[in-house]
């Protein structure tokens, strides 16, 4: 799992394409319990990332992650811009201190998750993207170095996104619906799952 610049570029392209492809599903989930713009917002942001793919991939890992973050912040146009943007900006900052992959992957990811939590003033169990990111982080820690790490991360991301369905939202637009938010997968949890799974699939293709 070394991260050659070409590998990074392939991963990033694949992740961006997967998010863009999932836009209709994300919008549909957001129409159920939010303002219905999550798909188009994420699509706009990741199209901008794709547009800068060469420039981003030419950077060292820390600067590349920060560039992704800044691009999302400046283009997404919804709360998910600063939330995902903060994830990548903080992960980039962490990568400048702990650059050894895969050894430091969990620490880098942890910094991103903490930044999302701070930006959204949110924590686990509030029916948000954190309900996927936190279980993924836990799996990155507990399964570090194991042969089936990628499979386990992919599985937990899918399970965790589904587990947001019975939750009652207490953050974001969905919280306005109170009990009526129950029964729907959270769109942010779903987009986090899409991103994590796209990276997993890309890494698997590299092995």
């Amino acid at each position, binding site marked *: 799992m070394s991260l050659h610049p070409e590998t990074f570029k392939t991963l990033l392209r694949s992740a961006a394409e997967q998010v863009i492809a999932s836009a209709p599903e994300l919008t549909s989930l957001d129409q159920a319990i939010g303002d219905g713009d999550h798909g188009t917002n994420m699509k706009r942001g990741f199209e901008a990332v794709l547009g800068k793919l060469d420039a981003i991939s030419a950077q060292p890992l820390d600067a590349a992650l920060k560039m992704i973050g800044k691009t999302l912040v400046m283009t997404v146009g919804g*709360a998910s*811009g600063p939330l995902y943007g903060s994830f990548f900006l903080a992960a980039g900052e962490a990568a400048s201190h702990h650059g050894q992959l895969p050894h430091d992957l969990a620490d880098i990811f942890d910094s991103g998750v903490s930044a999302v939590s701070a930006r*959204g003033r949110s924590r686990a169990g509030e029916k948000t993207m954190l309900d996927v990111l936190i279980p993924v982080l836990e799996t990155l820690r507990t399964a570090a170095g194991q042969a089936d790490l990628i499979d386990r991360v992919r599985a937990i991301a899918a399970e965790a996104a589904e587990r947001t369905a019975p939750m009652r939202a207490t953050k974001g*637009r969905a919280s306005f619906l109170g009990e009526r938010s129950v029964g729907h997968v959270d769109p942010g949890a779903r987009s986090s799952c899409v991103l994590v799974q796209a990276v997993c699939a890309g890494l698997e293709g590299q092995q």
Partner: protein
Amino acid sequence: MTDTVGIVIVSHSADIAKGTADMVRQMVGSEVEVAFCGGNSDGGLGTNVPLIIDAINSVWSSKGVAILVDLGGAETNSEMAVEMLEPERQDLVVVCNAPIVEGAVMAATEAAGGSSLAQVKAVAEELSAG
């Protein structure tokens, strides 16, 4: 450079942002610098960090800038915009926890009297108290 706190209005809707700014100007005329932005970069409903940064800089005052927002994304994007300002400006910008229309009118009226940023924010936020 002006000597009153600047006001920035950030709504998901360009119409609400403009309408709120109109109501503020009716109250304070040109005594206070007011900027507004609303909508995403495709012209739909949403908020946009580059536009918020431009709005803040356009009403820059040595006394600082107070931002009034509507729903969650406007607040999150405004906080992000503040963090992307030049470092020496960041501590002079606040996002007020207040209803956007009433908060903007009250904040601007307070600012017109020459009040500090902290006073302007406190007056706007009285609307959210209790």
